[in-house]
């Protein structure tokens, strides 16, 4: 994916401005930056989730595979089927574990029960959850632990086989062990699909990503190889942030 001159406003308030970034295919891009700098806003503009917030205006260009996702006649629903999203707070539906994962397939019109069952299993294995839930698929997804719920949400997003997966602080509400599982999962998915992950945890960014972008006050200050950004940042603001001088 690629963003050019991307600006997002909430009413009069500018949340991000002039963001240019390339999201490399099948790599993990981590986004870091202090609270309120516009990371979530940027992320939500990549799958047009901002469209669901009243009063938002987006200008600039975002391409998915060379196609403009803000182009005329583009249906945001179709964009979201190719660009999945996992939220900060896990939000499983009050349905069975199986139906949570099958949801995206069913709404896309898939009917064949055996194909759905197979895709559900594959997604759950992918999300490293299969062994924990394979005997309780008909039980409610709400009965799982917090970390399991978040992996269920990841499985749900993976089931529709998106090209890009957006993750907004997917582990920030979890304990260290559950967090480690999510990080392992992201590391495993690396190379299979494009991932953009927002995190407040710099070790996490360093661990899971190939590239890192630093947002500050609505601007993308710098983006580059993760090792470079953390060891030899080009910008003074980046250095101050990663060395803990503010934020």
């Amino acid at each position, binding site marked *: 994916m690629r963003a050019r001159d991307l600006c997002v406003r909430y009413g009069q308030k500018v949340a991000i401005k002039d963001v240019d970034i390339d999201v490399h295919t099948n790599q993990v891009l981590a986004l870091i930056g202090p609270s309120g700098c516009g990371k979530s806003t940027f992320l939500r503009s990549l799958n047009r989730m901002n469209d669901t917030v009243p009063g938002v205006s987006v200008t600039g260009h975002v391409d998915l595979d060379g196609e403009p996702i803000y182009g005329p006649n583009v249906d945001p629903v179709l964009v*979201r*089927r190719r660009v*999945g999203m996992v939220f900060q707070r896990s939000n499983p539906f009050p349905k069975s574990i199986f139906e949570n994962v099958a949801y*995206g397939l069913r*709404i*896309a019109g898939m009917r064949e029960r055996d194909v759905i069952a197979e895709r559900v299993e594959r997604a759950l294995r992918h999300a490293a959850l299969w062994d924990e839930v394979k005997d309780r698929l008909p039980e409610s997804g709400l009965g799982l632990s917090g970390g399991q719920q978040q992996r269920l949400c990841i499985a749900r*997003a993976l089931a529709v086989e998106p090209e890009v997966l957006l993750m907004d602080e997917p582990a920030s509400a979890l304990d260290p062990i559950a967090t480690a599982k999510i990080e392992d999962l992201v590391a495993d998915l690396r190379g299979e699909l494009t991932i953009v992950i927002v995190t407040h945890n710099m070790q996490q960014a360093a661990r899971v990503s190939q590239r890192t972008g630093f947002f500050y006050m609505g601007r993308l200050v710098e983006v580059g190889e993760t090792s470079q950004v953390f060891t030899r940042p080009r910008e003074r603001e980046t250095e101050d942030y990663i060395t803990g001088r503010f934020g």
Partner: protein
Amino acid sequence: MSAAAPPRRLVGTVRHGDRALQTVTLGSVVLILAMLVVLLGDVALGGARTLTWEFLTAAPRDGMTAGGVFPAIFGTVALTLLMTLAAVPAGVATAIYLTEFASTESRLARLIRVSVSNLAGVPSIVFGLFGLGFFIATVGKAIDGVAFGGQPTYGKPCLLWSSLTLAILTLPVVVVATEEAILAVPRELRDGSLALGATRMQTILRVVLPEAMGGILTGTILAVSRGAGEVAPILFTGVAYYLPYLPSHLNDPFMSLGYHVYVLATQSPDVDRTKPLLYGTALVLLILTFLLNLAAIWIRSRTRRHSRAAA
């Protein structure tokens, strides 16, 4: 500074106000409970002996001084079902429009909200007059003119117009209850659905409505049970004093429990002989309403448990 400092003592009390407030509030609770117990107790004791199988299954006899209330039960149930059939889809659809499609500043949405809350404040007898003027004298007459050559077929009081009049009366409660239930669905659930590529409609049908269903059902049943006992709206629009047959068509008049209570209490030639029947009828009406309320409580407790599992 010293003026504001608290007294340096531990013994004694500074909470006289608390105790007085507790006494007053507890007093009103007791008073209300006592009234409820007296009311229900009176009806239950007075009606219990009348409540036989024959009373429930037979029609009134001997100038309504004997027999049962089956036609009134039948009429009330039919009326309630038809009213529900009309009010619930319209009310739920209105609430969905208001919460999901209308923006908060939209003129139309504001107009609907104002109308709904004003509708809720209209006295029920006015609904009865409206039903007479609108449904019977206007819509019914027009139907007769077009389809029945002017023969009064729908242009007269009947089950259909009474049900629709009651439906309008219950509509505001259904709308408000549904709106609240829908608004209580967390935004995260909608976002989760939309982010998976669901359309707005799929999100509403598959995530929002199932999640809101408990609240919708509870509110709807309470509204319906309130409407089931109403007399004023059906007075001019279809209820009958006495009918030798059960209604079998939408344009038949019908008997109802609420109105039957009124008839027994005021129109009987022999008040002493109808008194047990009067109690029995009131008790049947109360039991029907109670059953509906019990259903609502049951549904609410089930959905509570369900959402506690979510936390």
